[in-house]
């Protein structure tokens, strides 16, 4: 099913050429006037004289062979341009995901398993943090940690592994803030809920020791909704990364996508969109599989939400 979504999505991305006002050539060139030689190249590459669906077929064929077109503004292969930036985005999303999983689930577990002051404060903090958009978090983090404290750099990618990680820290944090809060809340709620279930009482009545009880009956069951929400929020990182990359002037796919959209470099927009949608779909697929593995009542392909 997800493969079908992907196919249809690719078709929509392709069709964007035709949705734009004017003819496809105008869309591809972003409204610029091009010399006739360039126009001929475009016509050939995109088979613009062929029937509509044939064009789609050619385009898809190219895509699957790694040929994503040529950037109008930079006159380079889109694939090359993407390849040089993909690691920044991938690193950012990965870094952020780790933060979300470790701190989000961690906070949620602590709050869920221990009622009291810690729990109440967690609820309040997560309620507020969940509403902080990535770009607002970005400027606050820049203000606090880059300007006032000087612990982390405010912009740029950095060079080398360690320096890059240092440069990615604030962006990853900004990206993670609201998702972290949401994951923490769901974790806490799930742990609470599962703790109240009757089957936990059964285990208690049979003298199962507390540690085993929490591990096998509360956490194991809570893992289901926690995994779902973690998966959903991590998938959403893929799109929101663009905002954070822009705020921190990072040289990633998201920032490039925005620039390309602004300069109407359609081929680049199509290429990156396709990549991001694919990544999004793949992550969702993985979450579905994980969910089906965790919950024996559910067969693959149906996520009960």
């Amino acid at each position: 099913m997800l493969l079908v979504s992907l196919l249809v999505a690719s078709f929509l991305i392709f069709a964007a050429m035709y949705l734009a006002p004017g003819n496809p050539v105008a869309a591809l060139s972003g409204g610029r006037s091009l010399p006739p030689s360039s126009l001929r190249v475009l016509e050939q590459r995109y088979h613009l004289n062929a029937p509509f669906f044939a064009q789609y077929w050619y385009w898809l064929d190219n895509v699957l062979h790694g040929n994503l077109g040529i950037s109008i503004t930079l006159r380079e292969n889109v694939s090359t341009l993407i390849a040089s930036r993909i690691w920044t985005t991938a690193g950012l999303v990965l870094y952020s995901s780790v933060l979300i999983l470790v701190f989000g689930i961690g906070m949620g577990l602590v709050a869920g398993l221990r009622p009291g002051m810690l729990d109440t404060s967690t609820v309040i903090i997560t309620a507020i943090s969940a509403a902080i958009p990535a770009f607002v978090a970005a400027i606050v983090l820049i203000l606090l940690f880059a300007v006032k404290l000087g612990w982390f750099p405010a912009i740029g990618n950095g060079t080398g592994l360690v320096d890059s990680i240092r440069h990615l820290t604030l962006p990853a944090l900004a990206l993670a803030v609201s998702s972290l809060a949401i994951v923490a809340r769901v974790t806490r709620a799930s742990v609470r809920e599962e703790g109240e279930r009757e089957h936990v009482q059964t285990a208690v009545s049979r003298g199962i020791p507390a540690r085993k009880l929490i591990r096998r009956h509360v956490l194991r069951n809570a893992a289901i909704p926690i995994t779902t929400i973690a998966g959903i929020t991590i998938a959403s990182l893929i799109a929101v990364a663009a905002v954070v990359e822009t705020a921190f002037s990072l040289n990633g796919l998201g920032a490039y996508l925005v620039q390309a959209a602004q300069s109407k470099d359609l081929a680049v927009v199509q290429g990156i969109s396709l990549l991001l949608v694919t990544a999004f779909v793949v992550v969702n697929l993985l979450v579905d599989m994980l969910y089906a593995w965790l919950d024996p009542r559910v067969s693959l392909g149906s996520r009960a939400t």
Partner: protein
Amino acid sequence: MSDPATVSALQSAAPAAGAPLLDIAGLTVLLEVHGEKRAVLRDVSLTVRPGEAVGLVGESGSGKSMTARAIDRLLPRGAEVHGSIRFGGSDVNRLAGADLRRYRNQVAMIFQDPRAHTNPVRRIGDFMTEALQANLAVSAAEARRRAIDMLTQVGIDDGARRLRQYPHQMSGGMLQRVMIAAALLTKPRLLLADEPTTALDVTTQAEVMAILDGLRREFGLAMLFITHDLDLAAAICDRTAVMYAGQIVEIRASALLHDDPLHPYTAALAAARPDIAQTAPRLRAIPGRPLSAFEAPPQECAFAPRCPYATDACRADVPGLAELDGGLSRCVRAHELRGRLGGAPDE
């Protein structure tokens, strides 16, 4: 509170002599509801001898489930417990750690809704063997062997395959049988059966009851059988206790309960049930609705408002449990009403 006369009456209320396995005396439980403490059990006293089946009958809110939970120490957080529960001589409420776990293996509870009480994401095999492996240090292989064996005893063949299944792959009746089997695996001395067949359809009910009763007798286990069905309790239990508004109002040998009840509430319960053998012009319902313990007025008999035999004496004070003809009754008029309570009540 229980006076010595009542306590000795309790012990002589049962035909067989011998130290009781479970001895509840003056149990009062308060729960916190919306900030205030409310009584759910008031001065409950009950004994169960080894190998004896005692029924505990009452409507919703009577406190029967709460009694079972108190025995198994499954009360909600913040519950205040007064009185004593003794099992094999030890005070249950003082048990902790390994002792408490050992106690929990000796007292097995069978719950009402098997589907809610089994973990849906774990296999039946894990469900059945976890207590054995956790507390009795039984090896995994041995535990599985015993589980398969017990499944056969409750009428489930192909145990090996069943152990690998999940709860949602089984019917309610089968799941309840699994729960019974699991309860029996730790070789308990007392079974607490909390309405084990209420959630099942009628034909399955009969099957499960037969299995439960049969195995209990075979293993010589004591049982506290909780139900709202007076006749069901009377059918399989040697003695039956009736609860109302958080108190025990009658304890009687089951055989005598229907024809010679010692409390108007018991009589009313018996009369309210449609009897296939008789034709009555009209079903007799008890006017009013059953009270919970905290709704009961503090200075009178809780049943008085709905009782057709109530007099001023009944409203003067909370009646105590008094011995009468081998049974116990909380009705101050029990003596005089003797003989008139069996069958249909007057008016």
